[in-house]
């Protein structure tokens, strides 16, 4: 690796981007470029991924998990960077709704991210330095295209299911549209066929916070040293509010004071909620690359499935044999139920086999990652039904 002379935590992040711990890596050489929507080829590139469970002999039990904006491949096992449990261990694992005793689960890190799949924090082989803003802008479709190349590499022709929430749900919708024959069942959760103006607006605020930090250095912080920690933390604090709900914040924090019994007439974190957000911001900076945040939020902003199908989402799923299970949450104001309902209408108009459930919770958008028994029951039931149709042996009950 090139000598960079940067702060130790930065080189650690660069190392994770190039040589991720506790992950499998698929490498694609110059002969197999990733053709990006931006009109350029990305080559060489690599995909870091995790697998759980065993692929059956007929290769019919593979489930692809697509992660959200700040997620990664460590879906069902300890994250080597944060030392925390996998981000969806309540959903994926032995005996869980996406049961690794039954299904072969694959979870890749998306293109443009910073946990081992090629992205702006990875080393650009042409310069020997981190890509930074030289990295081409990527889209949800690019992520899915890369995942399809990974499946080719693994010799998996068709997936039993693709599942994901938020940005992961966007990938699920794109999968079913781009590769209908390769997707038997699709579980888009808490997502939309297009990013709304409000959501683009929130993302823009986050990006501006990163770029306003002088330590960002026009995106060259990984080579020049420093890190836009304050900007990225503010971006995360703002975004985190959008993942919760008024009711959840009130239930959790109310107007409670942080380690004091009255206001201090200062700008300290007087309130628990302030302290909580500051903590969310600072821990995020330790595990995420600021440029990646710019690229991945951009990919979500650009997502508009209908645009590729004459402005009609239904055209994307005409004659699809894929079974869909669309799920939304009552208090999710980032991807409200009306977005999911629009997906359902489009699927119905295309004659697709679709289930749709809205789950009552006050936990907001983040509910898809949390302990929601109704969500688990629905996912389990949907996959059981699809498994029967696919001819998979029944799971444990």
């Amino acid at each position: 690796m090139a000598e960079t002379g940067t702060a130790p935590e930065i080189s650690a992040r660069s190392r994770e981007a190039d040589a991720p711990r506790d992950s499998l890596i698929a490498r694609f050489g110059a002969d197999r470029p990733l053709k990006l929507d931006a009109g350029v080829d990305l080559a060489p590139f690599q995909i870091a991924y995790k697998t759980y469970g065993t692929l059956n002999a007929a290769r019919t039990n593979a489930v692809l998990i697509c992660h959200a904006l700040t997620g990664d491949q460590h879906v069902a096992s300890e994250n080597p960077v944060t030392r925390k449990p996998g981000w969806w261990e309540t959903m994926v694992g032995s005996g869980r709704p996406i049961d690794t005793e039954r299904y072969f689960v694959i979870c890749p890190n998306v293109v443009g991210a910073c946990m081992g799949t090629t992205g702006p924090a990875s080393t650009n082989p042409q310069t020997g330095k981190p890509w930074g803003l030289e990295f081409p802008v990527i889209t949800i479709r690019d992520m899915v295209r890369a995942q399809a190349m990974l499946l080719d590499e693994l010799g998996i022709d068709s997936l039993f299911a693709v599942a994901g929430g938020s940005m992961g749900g966007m990938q699920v919708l794109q999968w079913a549209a781009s590769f209908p024959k390769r997707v038997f069942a699709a579980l888009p959760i808490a997502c939309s066929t297009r990013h709304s103006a409000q959501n683009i607006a929130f993302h823009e605020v986050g990006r501006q916070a990163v770029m306003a930090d002088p330590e960002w250095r026009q995106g060259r912080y990984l080579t020049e040293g420093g890190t836009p920690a304050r900007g990225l933390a503010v971006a995360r604090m703002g975004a985190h509010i959008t993942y919760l709900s008024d009711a959840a914040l009130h239930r959790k924090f109310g107007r409670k004071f942080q380690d004091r019994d009255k206001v201090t007439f200062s700008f300290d974190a007087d309130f628990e909620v302030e302290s909580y957000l500051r903590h969310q911001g600072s821990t995020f900076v330790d595990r995420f690359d600021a440029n990646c945040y710019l690229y991945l939020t951009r990919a979500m902003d650009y997502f508009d499935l209908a645009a590729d199908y004459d402005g009609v989402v239904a055209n994307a799923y005409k004659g699809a044999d894929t079974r869909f299970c669309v799920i939304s949450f009552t208090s999710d104001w980032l991807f409200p139920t009306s977005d999911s309902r629009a997906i359902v209408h489009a699927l119905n108009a295309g004659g697709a086999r679709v289930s749709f459930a809205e789950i009552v919770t006050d936990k907001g958008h983040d509910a898809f990652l949390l302990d929601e028994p109704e969500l688990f029951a629905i996912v389990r039931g949907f996959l059981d039904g699809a498994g029967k149709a696919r001819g998979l042996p029944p799971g444990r009950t």
Partner: protein
Amino acid sequence: MLSRLKRDLTMAEAARTPGGARVDLLLIAEMVAPGARVLDVGCGDGELLRLLGENRGVDGRGIELSREGVNECVAKGLAVIQGDADTDLADYPNDAFDYVILSQTLQATRRPRVVLEHMLRIGRHAVVSFPNFGHWKIRLQVALGGHMPLTDNLPYAWWETPNIHFCSIKDFRQLCIAAGAHMEKAVALNAWGSPLRFNAPWWFWNLFGEQAVFLLSRRG
């Protein structure tokens, strides 16, 4: 509301076979050709869809108003979405299904004629079951009791009933004519859920049938 009524009906002790299935649902199931594509509008907890899937090999979908009903159905592996018969049928393309079923829900819709017309547009056949408001017990309660009827199947006080468009068997036949529906088959059930004599005249069914099931198709 629709599902509340449906659940009450499901819970009703009467009219169940030894296997536990409701007789009216079995009757409906018998009207559906094996392997058909079916949309069950107001599918409640999914009992009919399950029955159709298991006994008739049907490719079934459902719409249900209540969230609990929908979530229960999806957890059972049924393809059910949350929706409203009055507003959401318009989203379905023509001829998407072989049968569209409306079981014990017609009387709770805001515009029964529009719902029925959509059913006949979306499906080649429509199956409708409903409580018969012409039944003698109901007539007696209105004529002699002088109050809105309350029965085991229709237990709501008038101010809280979800049922806003009651009809008798005779009334329903008029709707069929108005909506251009061809009546292929009709069955009336007595208080215990047994079918009345098939060769009985309409006035007899209208007086002694507690429920009716109609199999309809598009005219022409």
